[in-house]
């Protein structure tokens, strides 16, 4: 459990530091609002349209493919950290594992799931 102390400290700093910046700015900054100041800031560009719009279906397809390869990472991580203890056999097995999924990516690509239109 002790190994998570660093993680806990990191989490604490990650919460406290942004909160301190936001609260500090709110406390110290002058508050003289006008319509331009209250408008949405987006990279210095004028915002277009509403905030709550329906997104393109491509985002969903990308997210689906991402979920699959995210799970692949979980399977390959134990293999990667044990790599030095394992032989060539394990490398071949991992390549087969990844190869099967690359076939899936190839399928998605050929079906146009990766196209943006």
């Amino acid at each position, binding site marked *: *459990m002790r190994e998570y102390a660093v993680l806990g400290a990191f989490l604490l700093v990650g919460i406290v530091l942004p909160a301190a910046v936001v609260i500090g700015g709110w406390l110290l900054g002058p508050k003289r609002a006008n319509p331009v100041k209250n408008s949405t800031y987006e990279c210095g560009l004028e915002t277009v349209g509403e905030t709550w719009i329906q*997104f393109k279906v491509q985002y969903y397809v990308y997210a689906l493919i*991402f979920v699959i390869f*995210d799970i692949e990472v979980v399977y390959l991580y*134990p293999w990667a950290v044990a*790599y030095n*203890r394992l032989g060539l*056999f394990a490398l071949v097995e991992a390549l*087969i*594992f990844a190869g099967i999924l690359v076939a899936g990516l190839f399928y998605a690509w050929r079906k146009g799931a990766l196209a943006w239109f």
Partner: protein
Amino acid sequence: MTLEQGIFILASLLMLGSALAMVTARSMFVAALWMIGTFAGVAVLFILLNAGFLGIVQILIYIGAIAVLILFAIMLTPDVMGLKPGPRYTGQWPLAAVMASTLAAVIVLLLVRAGNDWHIADAAPNVTDFAVQLGEAFMTTYLLPFEVASGVLLVALIGALVIVRDE
């Protein structure tokens, strides 16, 4: 009260509070964001139960991928986006109350029957050592399930794409 107990109480409060906020949120998008809080609490519980690898997987898969997928699914739904937040209660709430009460009754029954007979995992090796052991197990004893998992993921990918492309 030990440090572990304090962390457990904080994580439980995070989970229960997020779950309550999720089911009472009037916007589906906000509900999905609260769900992430519950996922984070579950990750802390995994770590407290000496299952650190599962805790990291919980963050990587459930917060990093599943929650994003659900948020995208909501953002794709025209009936949800662009509308005013829906009602807090619908006609389904009596049925939902019956289901939730039944589940709660089953859990309480199991807790009572278990009594003091609780087991948690022995002090686990640290996450990296555990991952090394897991990797060796994948490449020896559990090689076939490891490769079959790849096939399952492939089927899931192709199946999902077929369903999405048809619509």
